[in-house]
């Protein structure tokens, strides 16, 4: 058993899954009849898409599940080659177990390129005799229509407060941790209904102390969200371009942030600056342009600098 709680406390059966009741019921029905359509799971991170897929495989294939289940992560392997090679190779061979088909689980499908999605569509058709696909994504709008039309689409919602708290309480009991109502609240707030995040926050707190206090939680959280980006903006607004960009480079290197990470944060922080709202909108507009150029261009830092230069004039 893994010591990483995300794994250690991952549900193994339908009954153990908290939240997403309706979806779980429907899927359970499919599995009982041993008849599964292609599935598309859409929804934010940490709400049970991967867990449910794993449960399906375990319930369908029993101990043998690993041989009948291919898990691929599209955000790490998102080219057309993956679809052409790995997926096809696995789909081509017959299932060995009692189940009449195998399952290919493609996580984070929204990061598959268009080419790859086109290739996937053909593969889904060609091998649908012996293979079922479960696709998961954050935004179903990024999945091409022909694929959506081949799947049953299920929309997952962030977990409700009760579900998250139940999970946290359960883990605290097992791990002999002390937690009070306020800290429970804090974990939920911080997680925003993302169970993976809740577990990770809890485990990092627990690695520091057996008593999970509110302060501890916020301490752990703040380590994860560099405040320094705001300092960069302040320097820029105060017309110190050179210092602002030195700070920017320092922050990016220290936390290993990509240009996109930074621009996302800048775009959020603009609203907290002490300037007129009209100017904020102008800056957001500039943000959008720079983010676009960043995607098109090759030097992220240069693009950020061109954004910072605009702040100096505010």
């Amino acid at each position, binding site marked *: 058993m893994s010591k*990483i709680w995300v794994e250690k406390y991952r549900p193994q059966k339908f009954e153990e899954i908290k939240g997403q009741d309706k979806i779980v019921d429907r899927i359970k029905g499919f599995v009982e009849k041993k008849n599964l359509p292609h599935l598309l799971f859409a929804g934010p991170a940490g709400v049970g898409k991967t867990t449910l897929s794993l449960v399906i495989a375990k319930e369908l294939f029993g101990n043998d599940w690993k041989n009948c289940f291919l898990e691929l992560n599209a955000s*790490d392997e998102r080219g057309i080659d993956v679809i052409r090679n790995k997926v096809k190779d696995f789909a081509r061979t017959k299932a060995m177990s009692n189940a009449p088909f195998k399952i290919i689980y493609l996580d984070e499908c929204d990061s598959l390129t268009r080419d790859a999605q086109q290739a996937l569509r053909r593969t889904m058709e060609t091998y649908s005799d012996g293979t079922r696909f479960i696709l998961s994504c954050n935004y179903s709008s990024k999945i091409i229509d022909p694929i959506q039309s081949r799947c049953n689409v299920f929309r997952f919602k962030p977990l409700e407060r009760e579900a998250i708290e139940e999970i946290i309480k359960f883990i605290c009991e097992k791990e002999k941790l002390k937690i009070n109502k306020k800290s429970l609240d804090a974990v939920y707030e911080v997680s925003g209904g993302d169970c993976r*995040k809740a577990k990770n926050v809890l485990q990092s707190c627990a690695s520091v102390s057996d008593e999970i206090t509110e302060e501890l939680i916020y301490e752990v959280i703040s380590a994860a969200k560099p405040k320094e980006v705001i300092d960069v903006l302040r320097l820029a607004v105060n017309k110190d371009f050179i210092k602002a960009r030195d700070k920017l480079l320092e922050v990016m290197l220290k936390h290993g942030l990509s240009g996109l990470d930074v621009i996302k944060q800048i775009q959020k922080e603009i609203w907290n600056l002490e300037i007129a709202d009209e100017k904020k909108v102008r800056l957001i507009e500039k943000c959008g342009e720079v983010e676009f150029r960043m995607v098109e261009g090759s030097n992220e830092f240069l*693009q950020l600098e061109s954004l910072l230069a605009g702040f100096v004039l505010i």
Partner: protein
Amino acid sequence: MLVNRYKPRKLSEIIGNKIALGKLKDFVSNFNNKKKKAIILYGGHGKTSSVYALANEINYEVVEINASDVRNKDNIHDVINSSMKQKSLFKEGKIILIEEVDQFSGLKDRGGITLLNSVIEESYFPIIMVADNPWDKKISNLRSKSELIEFKELTFYEIFMFLKKVRDKENFTVDDSVIREIAIKNEGDMRGAINDLDVLRDGDLSLLSDRDKKEDIFHVLKMILQGKNVDRIFEVINNTDLEELELWLDENLPLEYKGEELIDAYNMMSKADVFKGRIRRMQYWRFLVYVNTFLGVGVALSKKNVKSGFVRYKKSERILRLWRAKMSNSKRDSIAEKISKKTHTSKKKTLGEFTYFKIMLKNNKELCEELDFNEEEIKWVLK
């Protein structure tokens, strides 16, 4: 430019390498009787100019494929096929010149070498390839079908004598001692030597004493950041390494430009970068024109008035710092990969929540054991 004026028009005008040139000429003129239908030129300086000089001398057309073109199977096929089918309109024959044949990109130029292999034997026209390293494994098949011709470095004496000739012809007032220095400094490189002589002709002796890239780039920077002379900027920027220029400009722009000027100049640089990205993705090199223009003239004209005065331009340390950070991030990446394999989560997402994992790992030895970290990774976690 002086180099262009002294570009060899005939083989006899080329200094040195007489044996190699003889072989080259023999190969092209007696092409129909040759068993091997291609040659590979390597070593020394002046391989390409020799080919052009020869072509000029015997009135041949040169069809050149160099590394700035995409050189995959289809493209090479197109170029070679179309030139094989058509006779040259005004010239007596054709030479197909393939530059940097050992530098084909494995990915983007896929199939190029294989195709070359198969066309060589059927070619109606002499194929001349140029290689830095003819012993490269990638071209071993090509090598066995080709004759190899080695170019030797020019000696100091050959360069020295030629420079003197140029000086006298151009009526430059440059001492023998200076010419000697140029010849020594440019070990074997006639083009570099003539360029140096060209600079000295402008009367600025200080440029020579220790002329390395820094001097060059300062000059270019000053021209772009302080001046507005469009023609001159275009001229120098063509001889400047754009990557390097971008870094230097980026670093020093805020020292000269303020406010609106800074915004406009960065806007230009940002657009240049967008085109750079497009070139890389589409391999469409014509976009280089825009990169060139935006970086040079675009930045220069972003200022209201010409500037003056001495500004100490600084070298950008960003690359160094990025490299250092990358080294330390590589451990973070390998750790994230191990975690993501255990947790049915992408590496990207794991990196997104990495701070939590770092806290856990730091305080929990068992976790590090489970993830099978190597010594360096453990050290990184505990840091």
